[in-house]
């Protein structure tokens, strides 16, 4: 049954057909994860022993509610994004389209693998698989993206290695790599120094992957200069999976309360998360390039997940998990929307968004929905993760959390409404002042060409996924209680 989740693995060997295979692969994998989720809901956790070896010796794949939930999010968002960015991929990857899609498949394989694995070292392998694919995809951007990709590579590898080091410490203390067994052994035998050191290394390693402040420096450049087809894909899901791995550590590797009471990792997450919310939002405010702005906003939103996790209470975990979903959907809607805008007009600067609201009503409508969800206006989805985070903060008497999470809404409003204002309220400019001429193909020589021609709705296969993602923010918000009650709350017990 789990084989279906590994469809992407198979697909990557046959990259000649590129788009079709990729889409079929991710689509199948998405269907499989939805099916897995339904199965887990009915029958409880699913286990699969890779290669037929029984755990703890063999590698075990475990799909519990949470894993299925995150897998559904990742694969569904990825499918929509792959459909939506096909034209970008055609434009950007050129004759390397085949290798482009095989990299995409590799990336998603790695991510899905990280989600379903029940083995600490296997997690590392998948982490590196997805990261490698990620580096290469970013690198496709050329120019500054190459430098950004290289920096990401160095930092990402350090993160991966540190995680491995941490796993090493754990292994030598427990003698097992299986997550469930590690938890059992650690519960009995509490507080060896080496285990604590291992926890700390794992924390730093995964922190780098999820761009926790101050380990976020690789992210803005990587997202800004990556090709549009790539950043729309990695921005919503890649860091999420890092966050998910962190949640896994809390839930299935370390005993309950271990990371809170014995090693103060929860507190570290809390403090860094709170700092990250503020730092990310403030940095986002001053950005002129919209992709860079959204990149900083990602840092701030990931920090919300870290805060939820850092609170360590069930409600906090609900907030963190819900925010993984919400942020994946909101961010993909936002990135898709700006990719569509850039596709037809080459606009990347906030100031040039003037008039896009009228020229591209559907795309910017989706952008607006995504933005409102980010700000946290009910009933859009972003509101509810913040709502649970605030409740969790009150519950554990962490008033700073309450304050910062609420303040982050205001800060988010500041930088996102800048764009909405520009898009809807400013008159059309005659010519994008310093847009991405390279991508649009319109040079300054086209001054006599009216701006209307440049800013227009993107092709349907871009717009429809964008709008779907935008609407999803609201739908998921309205039905969040269904998700929370049926999936998340039973999942974290």
């Amino acid at each position, binding site marked *: 049954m789990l084989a279906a989740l590994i469809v992407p693995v198979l697909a990557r060997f046959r990259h000649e057909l590129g788009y079709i295979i990729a889409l079929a692969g991710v689509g199948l994998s998405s269907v499989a994860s939805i099916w897995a989720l339904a199965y887990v809901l009915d029958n409880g956790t699913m286990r699969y022993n890779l290669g037929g070896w029984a755990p703890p010796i063999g590698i075990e794949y475990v799909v519990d509610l949470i894993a299925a939930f995150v897998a559904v999010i990742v694969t569904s968002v990825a499918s929509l994004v792959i459909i939506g960015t096909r034209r970008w991929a055609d434009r950007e990857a050129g004759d390397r389209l085949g290798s482009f899609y095989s990299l995409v498949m590799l990336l998603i394989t790695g991510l899905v693998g990280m989600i379903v694995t029940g083995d600490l070292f296997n997690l590392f392998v998948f982490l590196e698989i997805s990261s*490698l694919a990620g*580096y290469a995809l970013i*690198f496709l951007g050329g120019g500054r993206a190459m430098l950004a990709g290289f920096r990401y590579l160095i930092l990402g590898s*350090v993160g991966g290695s540190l995680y491995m080091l941490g796993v090493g410490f754990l292994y030598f203390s427990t003698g097992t790599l299986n997550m469930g067994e590690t938890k059992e052994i650690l519960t009995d035998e509490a507080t060896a120094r080496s285990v604590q050191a291992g926890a700390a290394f794992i924390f730093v390693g995964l922190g780098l992957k999820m761009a926790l402040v101050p380990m976020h420096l690789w992210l803005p450049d990587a997202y800004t200069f990556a090709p549009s087809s790539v950043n729309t894909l990695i921005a919503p899901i890649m860091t999420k999976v890092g966050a998910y791995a962190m949640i896994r550590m809390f839930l299935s590797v370390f005993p309950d309360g271990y990371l809170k009471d014995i090693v103060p990792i929860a507190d570290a997450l809390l403090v860094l998360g709170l700092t990250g919310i503020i730092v990310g939002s403030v940095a986002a405010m001053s950005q002129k390039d919209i992709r860079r702005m959204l990149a900083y906003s990602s840092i701030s939103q990931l920090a919300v997940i870290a805060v939820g996790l850092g609170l360590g209470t069930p409600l906090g975990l609900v907030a963190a998990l819900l925010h993984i979903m919400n942020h994946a959907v909101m961010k993909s809607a936002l990135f898709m929307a700006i990719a569509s805008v850039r596709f037809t007009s080459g606009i990347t600067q906030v100031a040039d968004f003037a008039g896009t609201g009228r020229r591209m009503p559907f795309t910017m409508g989706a952008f607006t929905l995504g933005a409102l969800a980010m700000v946290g206006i009910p009933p859009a989805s972003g509101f509810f993760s913040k709502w649970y985070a605030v409740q969790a903060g009150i519950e554990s008497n962490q008033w700073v959390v309450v304050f910062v999470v609420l303040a982050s809404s205001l800060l988010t409003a500041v930088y996102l409404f800048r764009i909405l204002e520009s898009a809807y309220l400013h008159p059309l400019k005659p010519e994008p002042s310093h847009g991405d001429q390279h991508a649009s193909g319109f040079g300054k020589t086209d001054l006599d060409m009216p701006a209307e021609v440049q800013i227009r709705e993107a092709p349907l296969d871009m717009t429809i996924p964008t709008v779907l993602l935008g609407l999803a923010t609201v739908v998921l918000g309205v039905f969040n209680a269904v998700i929370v009650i049926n999936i998340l709350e039973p999942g974290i017990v």
Partner: protein
Amino acid sequence: MIDEIAARFPYWASGLLIAIGLYGMIGKRSLVKKLIGMNIFQSAIILFFIAGSLRHGATLPILLRKDGHIIEPIAPELYVNPLPHVLMLTAIVVSVAITGVALAFLVRIYREYEDLDEESLLKKVRQ
């Protein structure tokens, strides 16, 4: 102190190598040197794993035979832990892959800008 270091020499060595690797990645401006730093860093961790699997007086994890018969009972204390070796094989593969990709990056960057110094590269890229 010295006894302590000597007794756990492999650990201290890998710690030292990690430090050197980190310095290489952070302190050096050349991208190639950064990459080398990263490699040292990863090797250090591999060393750490291998060192952890050692046991004094133990031998290779191959079933010992005497006169064509496996020695019974199989005594785990006779063998070094094989699992870390297997893991590190994987880790080495991963690390080689990363190095390969990184070197490919560097070749591309060098072809485009004829430069691998981070700061001057940044200046060129911004133009």
